[in-house]
C-alpha cells in the first residue's frame, strides 16, 4: 500500500526584481493507494501534480511529510522502494544513442533481473507493445509514439508493483494513447497500483477507481468519479473539475 502523509513542498523563485518568493507547490497532501487501484491525479497546470508525483517517485524530497510504500520510507529504503516503482511522464527522456534492446537490457541489469529472465521479458514486452520492427533501432531515430512505447517497455522490465504515470499520454496520437491505456488496465488486473495524472478528464473517468482533484497544492476533492460528480452535482468529471476550480477561485 502507498501512503502519502501531509506532503508539503516549498520552492523559492526569483522575481524579475531578484526578490526571493517562497511558495508551496504541495501544501499538506495526504492519501492512500491500495493494491490493484488506479488513482487519477487531476488538476490544472501548476496545481502541483508533477511535484507530487516526483516526490512519490523519489526524485524530489518533500519539505515535510512522508511517503511510504508497504511501510518502507525513502529515508531508510530508497533503493528497495525504487526497485518496485516505475515512473513515466510525458516528458520522460531516454538515451537516444542506445538501441531499444540495449536500453531494456541496461534497465534489467539495474533492476537486478537475471539474464535469462530479462531476455524472456524483453521478447514478451516487445510482442505486447508491438516493438519488433524497431527493437534494434537507436531510440533517437524513433517517432514520439514509438519512443513512448519504449518508455513503457522500460517500466515493465522489472515487473514493478507501483506505476507513477505523469501525463503519460500527453502529445501522443490516439493509437499510442490507446496502447498506454490498455497497458494500465492490464497492470491493474495484475494487482498493480497506478497513480495516473492526466489532463484528459474522459480518460480519467474511464480508467480510474478513485480521483484526487488538486489545485494550488491542496486537495479540492477526492473519491470515486461517481462521488465527485455527486459532490459537485455534475454529470461528468470535466464539469466537476471546472466547478471545483471555480469554487476555489471564488473562495479567494
Amino acid at each position, binding site marked *: 500500500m502507498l501512503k502519502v502523509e501531509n506532503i508539503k513542498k516549498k520552492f523559492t523563485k526569483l522575481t524579475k526584481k531578484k526578490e526571493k518568493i517562497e511558495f508551496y507547490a504541495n501544501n499538506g497532501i495526504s492519501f492512500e493507494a491500495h493494491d490493484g487501484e488506479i488513482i487519477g491525479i487531476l488538476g490544472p497546470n501548476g496545481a502541483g501534480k508533477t511535484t507530487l508525483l516526483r516526490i512519490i517517485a523519489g526524485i*524530489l524530497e518533500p519539505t515535510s511529510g512522508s511517503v511510504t510504500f508497504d511501510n518502507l520510507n525513502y529515508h531508510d529504503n530508497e533503493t528497495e522502494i525504487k526497485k518496485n516503482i516505475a515512473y513515466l511522464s510525458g516528458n*520522460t*527522456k531516454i538515451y*537516444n*544513442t*542506445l538501441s531499444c534492446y540495449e536500453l531494456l537490457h541496461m534497465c534489467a541489469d539495474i*533492476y537486478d533481473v537475471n539474464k535469462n529472465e530479462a531476455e524472456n521479458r524483453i521478447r514478451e514486452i516487445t510482442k505486447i507493445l508491438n516493438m519488433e520492427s524497431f527493437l534494434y533501432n537507436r531510440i533517437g531515430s524513433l517517432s514520439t509514439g514509438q519512443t513512448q512505447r519504449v518508455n513503457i517497455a522500460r517500466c515493465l522490465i522489472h515487473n514493478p508493483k507501483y506505476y507513477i504515470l505523469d501525463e503519460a499520454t500527453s502529445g501522443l496520437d490516439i493509437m499510442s494513447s490507446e496502447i498506454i491505456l490498455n497497458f494500465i488496465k492490464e497492470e491493474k488486473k495484475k494487482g498493480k497500483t497506478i497513480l495516473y495524472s492526466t489532463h484528459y478528464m474522459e480518460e480519467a473517468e474511464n480508467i480510474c477507481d478513485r480521483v484526487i482533484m488538486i489545485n494550488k497544492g491542496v486537495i479540492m476533492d477526492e473519491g470515486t468519479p461517481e462521488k465527485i460528480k455527486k459532490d459537485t452535482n455534475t454529470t461528468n468529471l470535466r464539469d466537476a473539475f471546472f466547478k471545483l476550480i471555480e469554487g476555489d477561485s471564488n473562495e479567494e
Partner: protein
Amino acid sequence: MKNNVWNILKKELREMFRDKKSLAMMLVIPIFIPLLIIGMSALFESEMSMPITDYNTIGFNYELTQAEESIISELDINPVIDTEANLEEKFQNGEIDLYVTKEENIYTINGDDSDTSTYASNLVENYFNAYKNYLQTDYLANHNINPDEVLNMIVLEENIKTEDNFFSSYVINYAFLFIIMAITVSATYPATDATAGEKERGTLETLLTFPIKSRDIIIGKFLSVTLSSIITGMLSLLLAIISLKIANNMFTIYEGVNLMLPLSSLIFAIVVIIAYSFLISGLCIAIASKSATFKEAQSALTPLTFISFFPGMIAFMIGITTTNLYACIPFLNYTLIFTDITSGNINYIHIFLMLLSTMIIIAVILKIIIKQYKSERVLFG
C-alpha cells in the same frame, strides 16, 4: 544491484563512443602534438642553422687593407665597398645584411634587430676581434715585445659540463604541457555531456528514478570521463614519442642527443598522465554538474584549460625545481615531476606525494558531487 557503477560506466561509454563530437575530442586533439613537436624543432633548426651566405654580405664605407681582406676572406665575408649613403640604401633594399662605417679609428656597425642582421653582427664582431688581435700582435712585434707575453698573460681553460641539449628539454617539456592541455580539453566534453548534457536532454530525471545510489552514478560517470582522458593522454604520449623519434633523426639541433625516454621514465610518465587524467576528470565533472545547460558548463570549464597549462609553463620558464610542497600542488606538480623524470631524476617521495594529493583532491571532489546529486538542485539548479 552491486554492479550499478559498471552499468552506468557501460552506458556512458556507449554514449561517448557513439557521439562523434566526443570521439573527435578524444582522438583528434592528440594529432596536434606531432605538429607541435615537428613545428618547434623546424623553427629551432631554422634559427640555429642559417647558412652563412644568408648573412655574410657586409658593406664597408672604406677601402680595405690587405690584412683586412685576408681576415674577411678567412671568415667567408662577402664585402661590398661603397659610400655610406649608398650602403644605407642597399641595406634598406636588403642587398647587404649589415654595413660598417669608419671615421678615423672609430668603426660603427649599422644594422637592425632582424635575424639576418643579428647573425651578420656576430660575424662582424668576430672579424673585428681578429683584426684587433692582428693589429695588437703587429704593434708589439714592431716594438720587439713578444706578443704572447702581453696578450696571453693568463691562460683560460674551459671545463664546463654541458647540460642536456637545450632544445631537447624545451621540446620534451612543451610536448608534455601540450599533452596536459589535450587531456584537459578532451575531458571537458564528455564531462559536460555526462552531467549538464544529461540534465539538458532530460534523461537525468529518468536516471534518478532508477534504484541506483547517487554515489554509483557519480563514480560511473567519473570513471567514463577518466577513461576518455586516459585514452587521449596515452594517444598523445604515443604520438609524442613517434614525433620525437622522427625529430631526433630529422633535425641537426638534436645531434648527439637521444630524445627517447628510457623505459623507467616512460612508465613514470604514464603514471603522471593517469594521475592527471583522474584529477582533471573529477574537476570537470564537479564544475559541469553545477551548470544547468551544456553551454553554461562549457563556459564554466574554459578557464580550466588555461589553469591546467600555465602553472607548468611558468615553472618551466623560470626554472622552479620540485620540492615536497610543490609535489602536492595540483597542476604544478605534474609538470615538475615530469621534468624530473625526463631528466632522469626520479624521486619516489615526490611521486608518492603527487599521487597522495591527487587522491585526496579526487575524494573531496567526488564527495561534493555525490552530495550535490542527492539534492534536487542537480535537476533544477
